[in-house]
Structure formats: C-alpha cells, structure tokens
C-alpha cells in the first residue's frame, strides 16, 4: 500500500484558494446575493423574535415593506433620510483619503466632535458681539481647524516616531468626548449638561432646512472623487498607501504626505462637525457625533474607498437604520431589534467579500480536475 492511500493522508474535504482575479459582474453578483440572503435571514430571525409575526405570519410582507417605509414613507422621513445620509457620507468621505493611504483613521468620531465643539465655542463666546456673517465664517474655520488639529496630532506621531495610528486616533476620540464634557460643565452652570440652542451663527438654509447640507456633501463627494483620482496629491496618497519604499524610490516624502492627508481628513471631519453643530443642533453634547464616526469607517470600506460608490453604501446603511426603527415601532418590539437587523445584513455583506477573494472547492472536484497529475 502506498503511503498516499492511507486514510490520514487523504486530501482535505474543502480547498480554499485565493482568486487571482474575478470578473466584476461576478463580484457584484455575489454581493447582491449576500444582501438578499441577509434580508431572508432577517425575516427568519424576526419571525423567531417577534410575537406578532408568529401570531399573524401574513404580516411578513409588512415587515419587508417597513424597510422602504422607514426611509420613503413620508416627505419628512425622506428628508431625514437624505440628511442622515449626507452627514454619514461626509464623515466617510473625510476618512477615505487616509484609508487610501492605509492610514487607519478610527478617529472620525473625535475629529467630528472637536469640529462641532470649536464651532459652538465660537458662537458661545462671540455670538451677538460680532456681525452674523463674520460669525458664521469664523465658526466654519474653527470647525475645520479643530478637526484638522485632531487629525494632525496622530499623523505627526506616526510620521516622526512610527506610532500605531489606529490606537492613537481611537484614543483621541475619548479625549474629544471628555473635552466636550469639560466645556459643557463650564458653559452650563446648573450642571444639567444640556446646552441650550445657540441663537447666533446658525448655518444659512436654502429651500428646505436640510437642502444646503445635502448639496454641500454632494459637492464634496464630487470634489473628493476628483482629488483622489485626478490630482497629484491623490496620486501620492495611492503610492504611499501601496508601498512606502516605492514612494521613497521616486522621492515622495511619505511623512509629508501622511501629515498633509491627515490634516485634510481631520478638517473634513471638522466640516461634518460644523454641519451637525451649526447646521442642525445649534448645540453640542458628548453624543453629537452619535457613533457615526465609526459607521463611516464601514461606509468607506464597503464603498471600496470610492467616493461615488460610498453614496450607495451610506444610503444602504441609513436605509437599514431607518427601516429597522420603523419595524420596532410598527411591531412594538424592543429598540435593540434595529441593531440586530443591521448587524445581520452587514455580516452577510462583509462575509461575501470572503467568497469574492477566495475560491472554495470540494474534494471531488480536485480529483477530477487533476486526474493523471496525481502521484503514482
């Protein structure tokens, strides 16, 4: 008996191999299938968890319709849907140049918060004392500078001393949160921590309250697409992200690119902070960024760091959020259900990347394919 025939020497049941390439239609087909499977699975989970569905299985149709109703059910919902996409997208766009450079900026939350804080601080101290127009400009500049500073600090440490940017930017989030707490303590003497709406320096509106915000973010999307694809800066970001050695080889200073790009990334987060602070809330809390700094990481990744694709991924995530909220209202279930549903869908989408990158083959296939090439 040859050694290869013994049982313990048999080839494994499943073979995983990295795909060298995959046609684009196939990749998108896999992603679409994953989303559909995810929705099906959501239905199953919902059926197990929601009493009303078990009593009346016919309501499953309403369950799925709620995803659409949540976002498109009324004029008000639609505007909220678009506004929330805009804010989420703005932060995701801000993170993208850093991600393209393989600089894992997990500090979107803090950079946004500091941007908002800076804007509110300006109106708190100067509101009513200087002309409104000047105040608005100062608020915007302060927000941009605040965010940029929050991005600059980890970038300098990474460029000069090689610190890990993921942890550093993450930690800066907490510093930002406590900084906001600190100022709220000073600004609100009664200790409630709730800063009343500031009368001065509200971002101007055109048409609908949210329209200008949406237009600004759309313009930013286009601008960032051009920046990354057609400018020298964008090119340098890609080179540094791919290989620092290649950058050095052609004389690109990776340190300079890292610092410059993180200033940009932080400043754009600061812009998102301005839109939230001066455009929507006219106030600030430690929750002003509301976790969107982290959700934005996912938006950027799922959109493959392409600003145009990110419009879609931001919309998908917002659709899930609002749909799930609608479901919990209509079916009178716990507020945790939306998180479960969003989690399931994202799990399927992220899982599909595995099947895009790897090919799965079973034992039988291998044998048929390589017959004759097997050892004698």
């Amino acid at each position, binding site marked *: 008996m040859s050694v290869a025939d013994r049982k313990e020497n048999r080839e494994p049941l499943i073979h995983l191999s990295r795909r*060298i390439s995959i046609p684009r239609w196939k990749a998108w087909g896999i992603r679409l299938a994953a989303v559909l499977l995810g929705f099906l699975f959501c239905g199953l989970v919902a059926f197990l968890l929601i009493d009303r569905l078990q009593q009346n299985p016919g309501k499953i149709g309403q369950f799925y319709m709620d995803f659409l109703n949540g976002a498109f059910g009324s004029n008000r919902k639609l505007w909220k849907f678009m506004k929330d996409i805009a804010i989420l997208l703005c932060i995701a766009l801000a993170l993208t140049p850093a991600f393209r450079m393989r600089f894992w900026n997990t500090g979107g939350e803090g950079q946004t918060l500091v941007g908002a804080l800076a804007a509110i601080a300006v109106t708190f101290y100067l509101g009513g004392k200087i002309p409104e127009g000047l105040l608005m400009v100062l608020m915007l500049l302060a927000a941009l500078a605040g965010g940029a500073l929050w991005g600059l600090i980890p970038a300098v440490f990474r460029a000069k001393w090689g610190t890990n940017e993921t942890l550093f930017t993450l930690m800066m989030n907490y510093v930002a949160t406590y900084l906001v707490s600190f100022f709220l303590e000073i600004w609100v003497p009664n200790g409630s921590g709730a800063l009343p709406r500031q009368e001065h320096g509200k971002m101007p509106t055109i048409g609908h309250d949210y329209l200008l915000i949406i237009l600004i973010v759309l313009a930013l999307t286009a601008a960032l697409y051009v920046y990354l694809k057609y400018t*020298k800066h964008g090119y340098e970001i*890609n080179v540094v992200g791919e290989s620092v050695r*290649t950058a050095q080889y052609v*004389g690109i200073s990776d340190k300079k690119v890292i610092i410059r790009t993180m200033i940009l990334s932080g400043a754009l987060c600061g812009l998102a902070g301005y839109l939230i602070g001066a455009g929507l809330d006219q106030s600030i809390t430690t929750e002003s960024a509301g976790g969107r700094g982290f959700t934005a990481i996912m938006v950027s990744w799922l959109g493959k760091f392409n600003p145009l694709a990110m419009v879609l991924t931001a919309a998908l995530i917002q659709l899930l959020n609002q749909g799930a909220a609608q479901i919990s209202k209509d079916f009178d279930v716990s507020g945790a259900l939306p998180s479960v549903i969003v989690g399931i869908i994202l799990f399927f989408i992220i899982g599909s990347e595995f099947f895009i990158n790897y090919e799965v083959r079973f034992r039988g296939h291998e044998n048929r394919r390589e017959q004759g090439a097997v050892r004698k």
Partner: protein
Amino acid sequence: MEKRLALQMRGITKRFGPVTANNHVDLDVYQGEILAILGENGCGKTTLMNMIAGIYYPDEGQILIGGQEVLIRSPKDAFDHKIGMIHQHFKLVDLFTAAENIVLGLREKEGYNLKQVNARVAAIAEKYGFHLDPTKKIYEMSVSEKQTVEIIKVLYRGADILILDEPTAVLTPQEITRLFDVIRRMKADGKSIIIITHKLNEVLEVSDRVAILRRGEHIATVNTAETSEAELTEMMVGKKISLDIPRSEPENAQPRLVVEGLNLKSPEGVQVLTDISFTANGGEILGIAGIAGSGQRELLESIAGLQPVESGEIIFHNPKKDKPVTFFHKSMKRVEELGREHAFHDRSGKEVSFEGMHRREIRKWVESGDVLFKEDEIIDIRNKNPLEIRELGIRLSFVPEDRLGMGLVGSMGITDNMMLRSYRKGHAGLLDRKPPRELAEQIIRELEVMTPGISTPVRRLSGGNVQKVLVGREIAFAPKVLMAAYPVRGLDIRSSYTIYRLLNRQKDRGVAVIFVGEDLDVLLALCDRIMVMNGGRVTGIVDARSATKEEVGLMMTRTEKREEEGR
C-alpha cells in the same frame, strides 16, 4: 567504520510554475556527520531542505528515513520524524522568553510547567555548550542568542537531523567559531547536521562531506578531506556556457559615475559597505558579481539616494558642455546658483550673467534655449534624495531588485506606473495622464508586454512583463546612468534576452550601465568589466572578456586572507 543512513532523498523534483527548482535530486545523510550543501544563489538548496522540513511537498520522488519511506506534509510531520530546520529568518515571538518560545506549539501532557521547561532547556544548553538564559526575552537578545533559541527549540523536540540554513550569515567570526564547536558536539552525540552555505572556507572547516547543487541539480557529493577550494568552486559554478549574447566594443568610454571610498552602515550599525571605489564609464556595461547580500543592493540604493552613506564620494559627470539648460534645470534656484558660479555661456560664447535680473526674465531666457553650459557638470550626489538628484538635472535610472515593492505600484495600471517619476510635471495640481498613456502604449508595443489592458494592475502581470514595464520606464527617461539589480531574475529565456538587448542598446547610446547579476555566465558574456563584491568590499575588478568563471567565483567566495591570519 560503519555508518548508518539517517535520511535518503530519491529523485526529488520540485517545480514552481515553469521553473524547476530541484531536478531529480538524490542525497544521502548519515548519522553523526556534518553535511554541507553548497551552491550559488537560486540553485535550489533551500527549496530542497524545505521539503525535508515539511514546508514544501515534492512533486516527485521519495524521502526515506531509516530505510522507510515517509510522507512529510507539514513541519509537524517533520518533527515526528525527528527532523528540525533552523531557518535563515528566525520565527520567534519577541515578547516571550527563550523557554516560552521553545515550548510554543508543543502539546505535552505535562503542560507548560515553566520550571521544568527551564530546567530541560538549561540541560540541553549545557550538554552542547550553548550559552543561554531560558528566562531572557527574545527582544533583549542578540542575533546569535536568537539563533541559539532556534537550535534548542529543535533539539527540545528531539530532532536527530538538524538543518541549518545559512547559519553563519548573521554572525560575527567569534560567534561562528562558537557555533561550529556546538555543531561538532552535536555530531559527536550522533546527530546529523546539514548546513546550507555558500562560503567555501566554512565548508572546508566544519563539514565531513559536501553536496554540490547547481541549477537545481545534484552535481556530486565529495568528502571534504579529499577536495579543494578550486575543485568545489568549479563544481559550484560549472564550465562556461556559450550564451551568444552580442557584445559591442565600448566606444569613447568616459567616466560617468565615480564612487570613491564609500562606507555605509545599516540602521542597526553593522558595516555594510567598506571602502567601495569604482568608476562606471559611459558606453560600457559594468557588471557587479557577488553572493547575494554582499552589499550590492545597498550600493545601488546609496547611489540612487535611498540610503544615507557614512563617508565617501559619489561623483556624477554630467555631459553638459555646450548643451542648453533643459527641463530638469528649471528648478530656478539651482539655475541661479549655477549662474553665479559662471557655469553658462550663450550661443556666441559670451558668459551669461543673471545679475540684476528678475526670476521671471531668467526663466524666459533659459526656456529660449540660449543658455548653454560651459563645461561638463561634476556633481557630488552623495546623500541627495532621488528628487533632489533629478532636480539637479541628473538622469539616473534605477531598476531595483524588488520590482513590485519598490520600482512599481502593484495595484496601479501601466499608465499610472509610467507617471511615477514624471507625475510632478506641469504646474497645476492636476495629473496629466496623456504622455504616460502614450508611453505605456509605446512600451507595450515595442517590448511586447502581454497584458489584458493598459489599466490592468501590474501585479497581475507575469514576472517578465512586470520587468519589461519597469525597465521600459526607466529607459524612457533617456538616462545617463542606468543601474539594474538582478533584472532577469525569474524571467524566462525570451524575456531575459529582451532585457539584455535593451541594456546593450543603452550602452551603445553612451549610457553607463551597471548590471548586478547572479549568473556568472551572463555577467561574463554581457558585461565589459566585472566588479566582484564580497562581504561589502570590492575584491576585484576584472575584464569580462578575459576573466574566467573560476577566477570570479573564487573572488566571490573567498574570505579575505587578512581575517584568516588574524585568528
């Protein structure tokens, strides 16, 4: 004396795609012997040993241990057969202690009773004469101590056959002596030791027998006592093969790049280059021969401005006499500086002075093409970064060894890779992709690059095509000096000849070509002169037309006499 076989390899063949790394290799290893495996870079030494150690699986052939055929499919299988390999690059967890690293991955019933483990480690260390503190953490250790941990790790698992891959490459002479003592003690204990090496003096010093590999084939196994340095060299490099690479006579060879007394230390403080001096002439191909890691890469990188050198000069002779100031000199600061140094004259021969002129006027004058250089430029480019070198108007092209990690951006298409050196052109912030696209199309056409499309990531192309893209780009800038490190490594014959042809064409254009190669036949057939490096020093510069392979081979491998006598 009766010797018992420990391990036999029968007809072992391993292929990687079209490349055959090992071709029907037969090899015997006896108990209680030290066997050296000798061969040039890329001759398949490490691949062969990796198959015994369970890293690779042979395509054909059998491995017998104690006369029984065995199947080694993983390092664990290898350990079960009492085989252990100490790799060139250590695989240790920095934050763990020596003992923790040693038991890592073991599934013993006794568990990880560190006290017992420490005692056993200490016992092994004492038995073979190692110096090791089992409780010391890896990050606090010297390279030699780390190696000791790796060796004990293997012994701890009860290995009887130990494979050491280039164990001396990272050690000081004293550490080597100590290592050899340990190896001899292990041999006395009945263990079989296989040492992969390309250093002849060590082979002669420590081994009992030598197996020589060449181009994946087993040439011979000889008793060390019955052989000589010259015989081993000849078996290692082989007889000269006629390669039929055309070689023209250099015309009007002028010094182009002069390196004087160059010294370089690695970031860790190790002397990598010592007192390197040579001249590369225009219209000539200067070959650099040497075992990998003799300082070739560091030399080219320090010339290209990628490694800060310690001392020495790198002088570039720029043939500029009576040529107009060109694009590269539009760095106006540099032009003004040269103007003050009286470096220019106009077409009538009158000296150019920028005295009292506005920068804008100077630029206009320069762009008209009427500002000419008076003499050839002589510039020291030492410790200038690649960008500064280009801004000085020096056209220095460099085809690095690491094509995708350094020369190209793997995820970008050919067009975007063409821009790497030139994307800064133009004043606005936007990229101009038209010239690079035209260049990309031209290179694909002229060098017959096989690619699905101009924007296919170059990472997806085959090695030969990647190299054509890289060499094509570096040549497109009409260089004055072209440095190429292992430009045909991994390429098939056809692509290799394309590269030789390109290098020859550059030579005929008057470019100073520096070619770092590993195949001596190619170096002898293609180059005009060959500089041999050994341990970061130049051991000789020979005329490639009259030199022999043995001559070059000896210069590559022999350690300097001075050191030997000093011991």
